């Protein structure tokens, strides 16, 4: 085994920044990363064993304990639960004879929970040995387990038909559907691939490219909305031996799946966007950080890159432009929502725990390996290509004054047409609901758990950076949904699970707030609990990154917009109830020492 580990380390030139890849390769052979392996890695990579352990323990998809031969990761997102996850889970548990989080005694099947895997429009979904299984039912769950028990391979258990579009390509072979419902400026197939690299970059200076992007007024499509032209300008002016372009494809915000579709159907445009950014900023390396959940796209995407190299759209002197050398590498993540935050993503790219950095300095000055780095969203990069081709004026006609252009929405939940909709900014929420076939709507979550839960009175509001910003996630809830238990509680569980733990505020406060929420849901809440939640949530704003700062949003925005749901649950006749039960809290110790609980009720 030692030889094989050293072989793997040598494959990556003993570069400790490639630890993520090294761990992936080791797991592929042995299924987990044991103590002995960690010692070898520490020795050869010149790191401490603690540093390796830090990375191994941080990500969902690395393990320091042996896993099963087949590992089922069942998605635990809101929409999965809305679409019958519980029944599917029961069927899995029953068929395997284990509870979630366990492994069968023969070591063949492991059953685990995981955060949103980007399949919100085809839930409940699971990842089984890196293959995505969508639209699961209890019947399918039993069928899968029975098949595995009879020795069938995971591939054989996928359904006969593949998904639509490129999902059916042999190199992808996934049962995932794109569900593209509405196309616009970005998705319309009116762009001859590589026109920008081939015809425009050779005749245009880097400054001119940045000017076009600036004049187009496009803002980052990941959610934060930083002006992309400005980011490129900062990147091009920052000093450093190398500069880097990073494409952030760690699409982890529950409810978004647009990057998955772009990477499936429009990967050339995404990569072309990276090349264009590299040209404009003066970078020589591009890195696409692909979330582990989309690993099924990896071979396909590497194939696209290989083709681009063959036709000299990657490599040395691209498209004949003297001295323009640029290549792209895909870095596979290992399961961590926080890595969608750009500085956490960079830490992860360097092989470390995905913990956000203190800012400033921003990545444009000190990013990957402390060198100037421009991090852009998948959608931004694909869009930029069309902007360069058609001009800034063309793009400025789209959208509204505050927010120019179009946005890909990932719509899911209680609607007839879940999927991808490309819309111009400025569209009203009510129009969006009509468009996706949503009736009897109680609420819609705009921008994922870190966004806002809004109700009917806000349906006239418009999508825009100043009014209702969104990274694209829209989850619809109809009037039958119990918003507090089905939605808000699920989102709080999500934030607690995904906090990196660096800031004490984010490590503790969501936990405290969830306790309050549960108290209200369980009928022990009082009016002050509601006020406490709103006030205490403010503490989170001192957290280092967006996850911490927005971790209370599910509670705060539901209190703001659905106060009546909370009011209906709290006790009216008393002013204070801590929710504490002496009887319940002594049970465990009495059992341990073998005595009967005894209470002095006159106290």
């Amino acid at each position, binding site marked *: 085994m030692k030889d094989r580990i050293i072989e793997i380390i040598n494959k990556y030139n003993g570069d400790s920044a490639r630890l993520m890849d090294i761990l992936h390769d080791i797991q592929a052979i042995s299924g987990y990363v044991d103590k002995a392996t960690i010692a070898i890695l520490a020795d050869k990579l010149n790191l401490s064993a603690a540093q390796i352990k830090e990375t191994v323990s941080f990500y969902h998809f690395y393990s320091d304990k042996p896993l099963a031969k087949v590992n089922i990761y069942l998605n635990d997102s809101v929409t999965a639960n809305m679409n019958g996850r519980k029944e599917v889970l029961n069927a899995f548990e029953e068929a395997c004879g284990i509870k979630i989080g366990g492994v069968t005694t023969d070591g063949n099947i492991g059953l685990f929970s995981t955060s949103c895997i980007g399949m919100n429009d085809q839930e409940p979904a699971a990842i089984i040995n890196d293959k995505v299984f969508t639209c699961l039912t209890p019947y399918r769950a039993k069928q899968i387990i029975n098949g595995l028990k009879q020795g069938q391979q995971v591939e054989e258990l996928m359904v006969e038909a593949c998904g639509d579009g490129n999902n059916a390509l042999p190199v992808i072979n996934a049962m995932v559907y794109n569900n593209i419902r509405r196309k616009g400026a970005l998705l319309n197939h009116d762009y001859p691939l590589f026109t920008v690299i081939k015809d425009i970059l050779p005749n245009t200076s880097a400054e001119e490219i940045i000017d076009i992007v600036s004049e187009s007024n496009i803002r980052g499509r990941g959610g934060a909305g930083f002006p992309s032209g400005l980011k490129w300008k900062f990147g091009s002016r920052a000093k450093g031996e190398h500069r880097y372009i990073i494409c952030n494809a760690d699409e982890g915000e529950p409810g978004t799946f647009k990057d998955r579709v772009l990477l499936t159907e429009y990967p050339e445009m995404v990569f072309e966007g990276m090349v264009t950014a590299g040209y404009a900023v003066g970078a020589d390396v591009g890195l696409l950080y692909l979330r582990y959940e989309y690993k099924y796209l990896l071979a396909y995407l590497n194939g696209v890159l290989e083709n681009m190299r063959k036709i000299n759209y990657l490599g040395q002197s691209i498209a004949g432009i003297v001295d323009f050398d640029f290549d792209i590498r895909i870095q596979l993540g290992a399961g961590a929502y926080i890595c969608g935050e750009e500085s956490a993503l960079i830490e992860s790219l360097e092989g470390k725990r995905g913990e956000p950095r203190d800012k400033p300095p921003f990545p444009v000055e000190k990013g990957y390996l402390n060198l100037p780095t421009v991090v852009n969203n998948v959608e931004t990069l694909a869009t930029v290509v069309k902007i360069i081709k058609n001009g800034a004026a063309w793009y400025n006609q789209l959208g509204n004054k505050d927010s120019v252009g179009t946005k890909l929405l990932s719509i899911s939940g209680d609607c007839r047409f879940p999927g991808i909709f490309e819309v111009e900014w400025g569209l009203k929420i009510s129009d969006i609901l009509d468009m996706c076939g949503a009736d009897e709507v109680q609420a819609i979550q705009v921008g994922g758990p870190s966004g806002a839960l809004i109700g009917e009175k806000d349906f006239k509001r418009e999508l825009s950076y100043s009014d209702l910003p969104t990274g694209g996630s829209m989850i619809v809830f109809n009037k039958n949904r119990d918003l507090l238990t089905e939605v808000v509680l699920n989102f709080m569980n999500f934030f607690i699970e995904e906090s990196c733990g660096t800031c004490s505020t984010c490590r503790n406060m969501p936990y405290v707030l969830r306790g309050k929420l549960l108290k209200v849901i369980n009928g022990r809440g009082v009016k002050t609990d509601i006020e406490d939640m709103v006030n205490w949530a403010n503490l989170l704003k001192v957290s280092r990154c967006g996850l911490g700062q927005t971790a209370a949003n599910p509670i705060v925005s539901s209190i703001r917009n659905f106060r009546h749901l909370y009011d209906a649950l709290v006790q009216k006749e008393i002013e204070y109830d801590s929710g504490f039960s002496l009887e319940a*809290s*002594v049970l465990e110790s009495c059992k341990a020492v073998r*005595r009967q609980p005894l209470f002095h009720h006159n*106290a």
Partner: protein
Amino acid sequence: MEKKIIATTSLAGCFGCHMSVLDIDERILDLIELVEFNKSPVDDIKTFTKPVDIGIIEGGCCNSENVEVLRSFRKNCKILISLGECAIMGGLPALRNGIPIEECLNEAYINGPTVGLNTQHILPNDDELPMLLDKVYPCHEIVKIDYYLPGCPPRADLIWDALVALITGSKLDLPYEVIKFD
């Protein structure tokens, strides 16, 4: 002005906060002019003998007796103050939170390196003993607490200023240094 009645207790604490009360030094003579102590270790009165204005709680709750004492304080006092880290957050005793209680008991009474004489491997279970709670609770998770005075222990000046403000109804000045510890 009529004297305010004060009661104090130490639950799962180390009495350090009570020591800090004594650290107000000669001002204790001024305090006696302002207040009368009822149930408190300071004067060793064991039970409430009259309604109390201000109850001061040191320590969190680790067992059923702590809970009963705290509840009796809530019942008999108009205002309750959590004094110090343990009352406010559980403090050092709360280090056991997260460790299964049976494991804690086994370590303390059976397996620990200092256990010598417990040859019969008995875990204390007499009905006279308070029952341990599943974890150590801060006071406000049991009853309503009106004010919190942080510190380990809270500085004598903070205790003095807070009591004077509460008794005289004046505004309490809380400079940053008094409540910021790290």
